[in-house]
């Protein structure tokens, strides 16, 4: 750590100014617009937004899908992370590489694959028909189920990776010790593994939940024009109706949910390490 204050400041200032002027300022103006209505400044636009049943439906659907995807990825994520932790080190490392790989591939490409799988002439329907299970093609595409599957595939690695590193930091002898003392696997998970890997769960949970709330590609491709989430609703309001007011209201809702989730879960993680100390 060097003491010459001016130098550090001069090094950090260009990017801080770049972001403040070229990024934060326009965003702040956009957000501020949502509080201005004909009657003055207040929450009128938000009340009007939530009075519309369609908007309410989209809001609840976004929240519901976010929670469902986070819960499902936590369950699958623990199963996967525990399974990988049980492997020899080299094999585990290669599997981590396979989990990172999909994160680098275009989400449009990753999501489009589900059109091939879930569509009317896709694998699922062809299989159902050839097995004689269903005459009519099943309608999976353009439903909440399709969005759920798409989001889960997109974000699952973001849950598994932090859980794997949390499990790596688990002291090696606690689980065998509990086992010798007669604890059941369920009890070991709830009383030992879960509390000791909570930070990994919090990091993964934040990434998956915020990622799902603010997803655009998945509902745009797999939800169609009927099954909207907040971002697709926002895009539709602007491009179809030139409705910039709704767009700025939705922006505030998205930012509040994103920042609140980050802050709340960070507090949860911090509260735990304070209690630990």
């Amino acid at each position, binding site marked *: 750590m060097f003491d010459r204050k001016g130098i550090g400041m001069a090094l950090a200032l260009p990017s801080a100014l770049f972001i403040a002027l070229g990024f934060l*300022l326009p965003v702040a103006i956009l957000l501020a617009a949502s509080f201005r209505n004909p009657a003055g400044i207040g929450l009128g636009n938000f009340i009007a937004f939530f009075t519309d049943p369609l908007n309410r439906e989209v809001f609840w659907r976004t929240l519901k899908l976010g929670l469902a995807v986070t819960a499902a990825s936590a369950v699958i994520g623990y199963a996967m992370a525990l399974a990988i932790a049980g492997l020899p080190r080299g094999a585990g490392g290669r599997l981590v590489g396979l989990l990172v790989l999909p994160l680098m591939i275009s989400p449009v490409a990753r999501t489009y694959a589900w059109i091939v799988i879930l569509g009317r002439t896709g694998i699922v329907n062809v299989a159902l028909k050839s097995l004689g299970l269903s005459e009519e093609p099943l309608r999976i595409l353009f439903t909440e189920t399709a969005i759920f599957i798409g989001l889960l595939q997109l974000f699952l690695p973001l849950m*598994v990776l932090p859980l794997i590193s949390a499990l790596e930091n688990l002291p090696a002898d606690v689980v065998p010790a509990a086992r010798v003392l007669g604890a059941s696997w369920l009890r070991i998970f709830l009383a030992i593994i879960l509390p000791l890997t909570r930070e990994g769960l919090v990091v993964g949970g934040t990434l998956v939940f915020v990622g799902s709330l603010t997803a655009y590609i998945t509902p745009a491709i797999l939800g169609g024009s009927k099954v909207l989430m907040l971002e697709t609703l926002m895009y539709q309001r602007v491009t179809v109706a030139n409705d910039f007011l709704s767009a700025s209201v939705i922006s505030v809702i998205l930012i509040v949910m994103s920042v609140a989730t980050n802050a709340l879960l960070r507090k949860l993680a911090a509260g735990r390490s304070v209690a630990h100390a």
Partner: protein
Amino acid sequence: MRKLSHAVIVLVLLFLLGPFVIICIAGLSSGETLAFPPPGISWRWVEAVFAVESFRASFTLSLLLGVGATLAALILGIPAAYGLDRYRVPGGGILRNVVTAPIVVPGIIVGLALLRHLLVPLRLPLTLGLFLGHTALLIPYAVRVVSASLANLRVDIEEAAILLGASRARTFFLIVLPNIRAGIVAAFILGFVTSFNQVSVSLFLSGPGVTTLPIDMLFYMDFNYDPSVAALSALLAILSIIVVLAAERFVGLSRYV
């Protein structure tokens, strides 16, 4: 227990990676519409991808944007990470928060805000908006990856260089920069991939003649149900896999993700 955990690993990998295999096969279809299994195998839709004029234009734009925005983010982000890590900066906490702020702002908001409250009032072109938005989005990644590399570099060697009479700039370019080279390469690859795959920031910053590749794909699939998007998706996936494997081999990319 062992059998169960192997089954979990196989099923999860099938769920995560299986769709790529399927999209590759669907892209090699000889039929007119998207179907699986395809009626036959041919290269016609892969060739069709290269014949679509708008795909060529948007691919070029995405490539230039990815390289330009990543370089700009590194040029701004490397000094910021170094300044905030190695020097006591008054208000350093606030500066760090400003520099990493783009991470918590959903991309679609950035696009609309830049369009409505920067480009339109100042009559600036859409391409500049794309460049600004992508650069701002990538700065936090650049700062984070470079900070992680700096944390592994002992301060003593810098102090030694300064004690032996090197200037601070000389110390930075001759001692620090070569030592964090791998981190910078990793940051470049991560930044480029993030920009190249970016949709939500670019959504409102696209217009006639100015479209990035992923946005172009979204528009194309709205009006077409032929296998060319599947073929293009497969090509992009294969390209990403090659880049990632090369990066993993040379700089150990997964340490920085």
